[in-house]
């Protein structure tokens, strides 16, 4: 690989752009393809193959007209927006960072969202719908609400349901969930949309402590990311 190509690749990685490094395994010739903003003049079949690999987040070989090409997918980190700077969010934020995710904790209540309580975790005191709009929720973003306060949680869930977020979770008991679903129904969300909300949130592993709750939520998030409905197991 030429040093110039490596520099371009590093620039894409640092600026958090999805990019595919395409290497001809016989000749060693390599180029970059941006699957969601393809450059002009690239073989459309190669662009389509890169797009497919990027969508599946799976680096793979592609048999092109000129031989076998390896498509190495580089995505920016998965993003997790935690709404509610509550106790569980402290564990969830740290664990998600260990898993390699970009975490943002959002809570307009300044008493909760303090740097002291969330050392090393990016914080925002915006209203969650504003924060979600600003960062641009995409198909590699997860949103989990944790405040139990409809004034804060509901706008976040509305924004998440209107986005391509791969995971939408809402903390709260079955009773809380039903009340929430009813409020969202009145806002016009059909059942199929409401079904996207994982609530009660997390896999049912009997989690009790905040750390265990974080493990249960992260496990469910990974499952949605890596084994989306209808996909082949990884």
């Amino acid at each position: 690989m030429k040093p110039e190509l490596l520099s371009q690749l590093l620039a894409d990685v640092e600026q958090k752009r999805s990019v595919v490094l395409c290497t001809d395994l016989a000749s060693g010739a390599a180029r970059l393809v941006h699957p969601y903003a393809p450059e002009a003049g690239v073989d459309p079949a190669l662009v389509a193959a890169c797009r497919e690999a990027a969508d599946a987040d799976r680096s793979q070989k592609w048999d092109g007209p000129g031989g076998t090409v390896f498509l190495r997918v580089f995505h920016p980190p998965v993003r997790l927006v935690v709404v509610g700077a509550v106790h569980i969010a402290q564990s969830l934020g740290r664990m998600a960072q260990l898993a390699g995710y970009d975490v943002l904790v959002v809570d307009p209540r300044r008493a909760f969202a303090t740097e002291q309580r969330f050392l090393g975790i990016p914080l925002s005191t915006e209203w969650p719908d504003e924060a979600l709009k600003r960062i641009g929720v995409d198909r590699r973003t997860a949103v989990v609400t944790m405040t139990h306060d409809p004034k804060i949680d509901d706008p976040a869930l509305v924004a998440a349901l209107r986005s391509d977020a791969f995971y939408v979770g809402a903390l709260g008991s079955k009773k809380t969930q039903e009340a929430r679903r009813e409020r969202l129904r009145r806002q016009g969300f059909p059942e199929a949309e409401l079904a996207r909300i994982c609530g009660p949130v997390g896999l049912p592993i009997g989690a009790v402590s905040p750390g265990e709750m974080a493990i249960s939520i992260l496990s469910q998030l990974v499952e949605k990311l890596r084994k989306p409905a209808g996909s082949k197991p990884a």
Partner: protein
Amino acid sequence: MSDHSDVLHQVAAWSRTGVGVALATVVSTWGSAPRPAGSLLAVNERGEFVGSVSGGCIEGAVVAEAVAAIADGKHRLLEYGVTNDRAWEVGLACGGTIQVYVEKIG
């Protein structure tokens, strides 16, 4: 920070100081290979490395090939697995097979 970004930054850092570097990439796997396609291992001319292409079972062999690639400038497509005739030497304990592409940077 993600795995791949760590490896690429190390490659760039070595390159900047004029040290020869090669990058090894898992390009396909069969069976129960420990690391998926796309896994990266960067190696410098002194044999120092970051990242991984397996659970550790073939790293030694890949590092040796990478050092050779830095010396001769040629890229290589390597295959390791239980069916490989060198399996006794660098086989994958898990019973999988992996193909690794190794190229010099520069």
